[in-house]
C-alpha cells in the first residue's frame, strides 16, 4: 500500500494509457465481428473459411504478433498502433463466433413471423435479428473485454506503455508491491469494463433483464466458447 500511495500519479497515468489501448480494439472488434458473423452464418463455405482463418490468427502468440505488426503496418516499432491492431485481431477472432452464434440463436419462427408481417430484409436485420442476438453478443463482448484488458499488458514488453509497465519496472527494481499493484489495477480495469457492459446490457436489452436464465446461459456459452470447448 505504501508503494501505491507514493506512486498514485504514475498508476493513474498508466491506467489511462491502458484504457486507451484496450477500448479501441474492443469496439472495433465488436463492430467488425457482426458483418463477419453474418457472413459466416450465411454460407457453409464462408463459415469454414472465416472460422479457420480467425482461429489461426488467434493461435499466433501475442508477443510475436505485436512484433510482426510493424512489418505489416509499416509502423514504428514502438508505436502503440502495433498493440491496438494486434489486440483488435484477437478481439475479432474471439468475437466472430459469438456474433455468428448470436445471430443463429434467433428463433426461426420469429424471423418468419417478422417477414410475414412485412419487415423488409434490412429492417428485419436491424430491428429483430440484431436486438435478439443482444444477450449472446453481450456475453461474447464481456469475454473479449476481459481478454483484451489482460493482453494489453504484454504491450509493455515491446515498449508500448500500459499497466504492464508496473510488472517490468517492478521486476527490474525488485518491488513485489509494484507488480501486485499492476495485477490489481489490471483486474480493476477489467471489472469496471465488465460492469459497464452489464449496465449497457440492462439499458439496451430491457426485455432480457427479467430472464436471468437466458443471460446466464449466454454467459456460460461465451466462456466455454472462449475456452475452446464449445
Amino acid at each position, binding site marked *: 500500500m505504501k508503494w501505491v500511495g507514493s506512486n498514485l500519479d504514475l498508476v493513474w497515468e498508466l491506467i489511462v494509457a491502458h484504457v486507451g489501448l484496450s477500448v479501441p480494439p474492443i469496439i472495433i472488434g465488436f463492430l467488425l465481428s457482426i458483418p463477419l458473423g453474418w457472413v459466416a452464418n450465411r454460407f457453409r463455405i464462408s463459415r469454414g473459411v472465416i472460422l479457420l482463418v480467425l482461429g489461426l490468427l488467434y493461435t499466433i502468440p501475442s508477443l510475436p504478433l505485436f512484433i510482426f505488426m510493424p512489418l505489416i503496418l509499416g509502423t514504428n516499432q514502438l508505436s502503440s498502433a502495433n498493440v491496438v491492431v494486434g489486440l483488435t485481431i484477437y478481439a475479432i477472432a474471439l468475437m466472430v463466433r459469438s456474433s455468428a452464434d448470436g445471430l443463429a440463436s434467433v428463433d426461426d419462427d420469429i424471423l418468419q413471423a417478422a*417477414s410475414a408481417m*412485412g419487415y423488409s430484409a434490412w429492417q428485419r436485420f436491424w430491428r429483430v435479428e440484431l436486438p435478439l442476438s443482444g444477450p449472446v453478443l453481450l456475453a461474447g463482448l464481456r469475454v473479449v473485454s476481459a481478454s483484451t484488458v489482460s493482453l494489453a499488458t504484454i504491450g509493455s514488453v515491446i515498449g508500448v506503455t500500459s499497466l504492464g509497465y508496473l510488472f517490468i519496472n517492478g521486476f527490474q527494481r525488485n518491488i513485489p508491491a509494484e507488480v501486485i499493484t499492476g495485477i490489481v489495477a489490471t483486474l480493476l480495469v477489467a471489472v469496471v469494463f465488465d460492469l459497464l457492459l452489464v449496465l449497457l446490457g440492462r439499458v439496451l436489452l430491457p426485455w432480457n433483464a*427479467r430472464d436471468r436464465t437466458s443471460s446466464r446461459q449466454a454467459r456460460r456459452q461465451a466462456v466455454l466458447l472462449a475456452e475452446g470447448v464449445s
Partner: protein
Amino acid sequence: MIEFRSVTKQFPDGTVAVKSFDLVIPPRKTTVLVGSSGCGKTTLLRMINRMIDPTSGSILIDGEDTSTLAPVKLRRRIGYVMQNSGLLPHRKVIDNVATVPILNGVPKKEARAHALDLLDTVGLDRSLADKYPRQLSGGQQQRVGVARGLAADPNILLMDEPFGAVDPIVRAELQQETIRLQDGLGKTVVFVTHDIDEAFLLGHQVVILQKGGHIAQVGTPAEILANPADDFVASFVGADKGKRVLRIERVDGQDVVVDENGTPTGVLRP
C-alpha cells in the same frame, strides 16, 4: 377473393409441394385447408402473402396478380398468425400488436392506442400491454398473435396452425373466440390445420388435401360429411370409423344420439 390458378411449387431440392393447384377462396368467409403433414397446406398459405413464390401459375387477390405486387408491401396488408405466435420477444405486448401499423407509417401513439383496443377485441386484459411475451401463457400469447394479425385491419387473415401448440382446453377456448371474432369482423380467413374437427368447426369452406396439394374434396362441412368424394376423404373425416355415423335411440322418452359402437354422445332436442 383469393384465387389460385394452376399453381405449382417445386422446391430447390426437387420436392414438388403443390402441383397445378386451383382454388377459389370466397371473401368474408373462413376457408380451412386441412390435410396431414406434407400435403402442401402451409406452402399454399405462404404463397398467398408471397413468403414463398410459386414456380408456375398465379395467385390473384381481388383480381390482382400477386406477382406484380411488392412482397413486403403485400405482407403488410395481410394478417398472419402462426403456431408459437412468433411474437418478438424483445417488444412489449402492446408494441408487438402495433408492429405492422408502425411499419405502415402510422404514428406510434395512434398505433398503440389502437393496439389497446385490439387487446379488448381478442379478450385480453389491458394490464398485459406492458408485459413481454414470455411473461404470458401460451394461450395469451396466441391471442396477442391474433391481435397483431388484425392490427393493420387487413381484409385477409392467414392462420397457420395457430392453435397447434396449446393444450386442448385453451385450444377449444381459442377456437370459440375465433368464431366469435369472425362473426363480428367478417374477414377473409384462410386457416391451415391437420385437425379435421377444427376444420369442420371453423370452416365455411373446407378443402381436404392429399400429398402434393392434390384436392381430395372441397365443400361445406355438411356437404363433405354427407357425401365424401372417395375412400380417402371418408377415412380422413372418420366416416368409416363410426365416430361420425350416429343413430338415435329412444331412452325414457328421450331421443339419445349414439355412435356406431353404441356410445351415447348427446340428446336430441326438438
